[in-house]
């Protein structure tokens, strides 16, 4: 399959290894990956903070760039949720019938990374090797908007050498919430304290998720505490093999 990668603006800038890992996994499975260089941001940050007017041109731009893709892979649940849940309304509210129609056509071909693997490509064993104790954090958008369920866990359970330990309070938000983390920094920190406590209780050395935004948040506190836990996007966990570990 020919897969178009929407890396997302923050993965592009802050987590390039996630994108490299997505490419590595998909190519290892025999697919070709293309990366349209015109892409920037889906508009989520603007939209969720109340700047819907500024989000609209970004959304329109995204739809134009990926209109002809066979499949779009996005290694971020929250960006997928933004596109699925709010692009149709953004088009409608701006009276943009052409965009609305293009969104309708695009949505069935748009996948979060673990969705693409499990639902569209039908694989759970991607030939990965990752000999570490790992816990999985379910991001809110993955859990409640995308209904990823245990798809990420199916992928992780098939990884050689990986010891998967359950995270207590899996359905609880880590407190990131985009600009919430700075606008309500104290409440956000209280939520994050509960989340990192649960992570530390697992005695895992790696915490993984389908969203680098939550992971950046959790890593922020774990790093401050010298906690001895690192965070890795699920693509990076799935990228390593016995011959070439991640």
């Amino acid at each position, binding site marked *: 399959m020919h897969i178009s990668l929407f890396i997302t603006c923050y993965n592009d800038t802050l987590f390039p290894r996630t994108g490299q890992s997505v490419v590595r996994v998909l190519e290892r499975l025999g697919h070709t990956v293309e990366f349209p260089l015109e892409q920037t941001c889906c508009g989520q940050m603007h939209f969720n903070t109340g700047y819907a007017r500024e989000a609209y041109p970004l959304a329109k731009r995204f739809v134009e760039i990926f209109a002809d893709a066979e499949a779009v892979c996005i290694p971020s649940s929250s960006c997928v949720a933004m596109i699925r849940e709010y692009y149709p309304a953004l088009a409608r509210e701006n009276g943009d019938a052409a965009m609305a129609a293009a969104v309708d056509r695009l949505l069935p071909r748009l996948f979060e990374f673990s969705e693409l693997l499990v639902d569209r490509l039908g694989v759970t064993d991607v030939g990965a090797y990752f000999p570490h104790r790992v816990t999985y954090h379910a991001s809110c958008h993955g859990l409640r908007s995308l209904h990823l369920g245990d798809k990420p866990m199916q992928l992780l359970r098939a990884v050689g050498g990986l010891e998967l330990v359950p995270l207590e309070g899996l359905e609880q938000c880590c407190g990131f919430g985009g600009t919430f983390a700075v606008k309500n920094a104290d409440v956000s920190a209280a939520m994050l304290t509960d989340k990192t406590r649960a992570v530390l209780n697992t005695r895992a050395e790696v915490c993984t998720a389908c969203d680098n935004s939550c992971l950046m948040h959790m*890593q922020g506190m774990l790093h401050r505490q010298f906690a001895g836990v690192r965070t890795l996007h699920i693509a990076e966990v799935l990228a390593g093999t016995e011959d070439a570990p991640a």
Partner: protein
Amino acid sequence: MSLVQIERGSHEARAHDAHTLDPRTASPFPAAAKIDLRDTQLRRNVARATDTIQRKRAALVEEKTDWQALRDAGAAIRREALTNLDRYLLEFEERFQAAGGTVHWAANASEANRIVLGILREHEASEVIKIKSMTTAEIGLNDFLARHDVAAYETDLAELILQLGDDQPSHIVVPALHKNRQQVREIFARTMGLPDLTDDPEALTAAARRYLREKFLRVKTAICGGNFLIAETGGLAIVESEGNGRMCLTLPETLIAIVGIEKVIPRFADLEVLLQTLPRSATGERMNPYNSIWSGVVPGDGPKNMHVVLLDNGRTRVLRDAIGRQTLQCIRCGACQNACPVYRQTGGHAYGSVYAGPIGAILTPQLEDMRYAQSLPYASSLCGACYEVCPVKINIPEVLVHLRARVVDRGRRKLASLFDQERAGMMMMAAVFANRSRYEAAQRLARTAQRAVRHGDAWYHWLPGMAGRWTETRDLAPLPQQTFREWWQQRGQP
């Protein structure tokens, strides 16, 4: 007065000041939350109570195999009612009055308060007993009556605790959930004159029962809210768990209900759905122990005078907003509060409104026409737990984001917005994201700036401006040496 008492007194006074539940004067949510986050007793009480209710709810939702269908049906009923509100309200009025009741229409809080006072004066009532009602809290009825020499006695156990403790509700259904039984014992012992009272729950309820019984038997007028108004039958439906409501609804001669206009439902049969979802969502019960419906006056049974005050107080305006109007579907179960990770940390007082938690975050600013409580739509990480548990499927995250846009759009017209750090950042980012070369230049520029201030790959422990709120409790990794797109271009096409 001992030193301990002085300290406690000043602490309570401070806590009370911080907890004004008037959205027009309350502190913004982040400031109020910061105070309550330091209250370890409050946080333990709120966490324990919400955990318990959530566990009970989850078990009872689990056993309903048609739960999602019930949610859909509940949402459809409420939407139908709101879409035809004018018709159903008139239908209710006609039926209720035909059966001997009286219906009043109040455009706002002060009108509603004056109507109630007028009825009380007519019956020469100087005291009333009350069933727990968020609507009367919304309009500040108790304070209003006190100013006009009418004593209002709360008869719901939690409301009694708050009234005697000079406190405010922090939850829609469990208004004193921020208090534990040791604190309740202290309030009862002090205000009821019972120095030997223990904190045994049975002893506490027995004390409340003795205190209230005398009032049930003496006071001739009751004030309540209403869970549902049934248009088809002209019925006023009230559900409760303690029996205090049944006492207030049957013993007095005069009954006054203050009910928001959105509470109407079309048909009696609609209760089949809502009386399954409401108790399960609210208190984790299959049904409420007491379900009362008065459809007008019944000679020889119950109150001889029945009044329903239909309260608008901003609701009609909420109906005009195509996205915001789903807020009025709410049946006040409080499930969103128990599920909300923000509410679970702060409790309800930080919201500065009688409506706290996710539903309060969308209802309060709309009732205030977005002029007050503008921080509330931001008091959410948009995790979606509220929407997931809502028995009438209010898409609270959608409304939160919509209201944020209304807050931002109000600000756009103001000159001061030109100097707003957040707005300036958002405008700059929008311009950067609109164009590939600008975006790539910004990525390079950020890295250049980083080289000027950082050595090697050291993490950030301090950042300036708004970003500094992040680094108060969290580190931030430095920007990597290469963006993904640089790597991709360097790698060349496979």
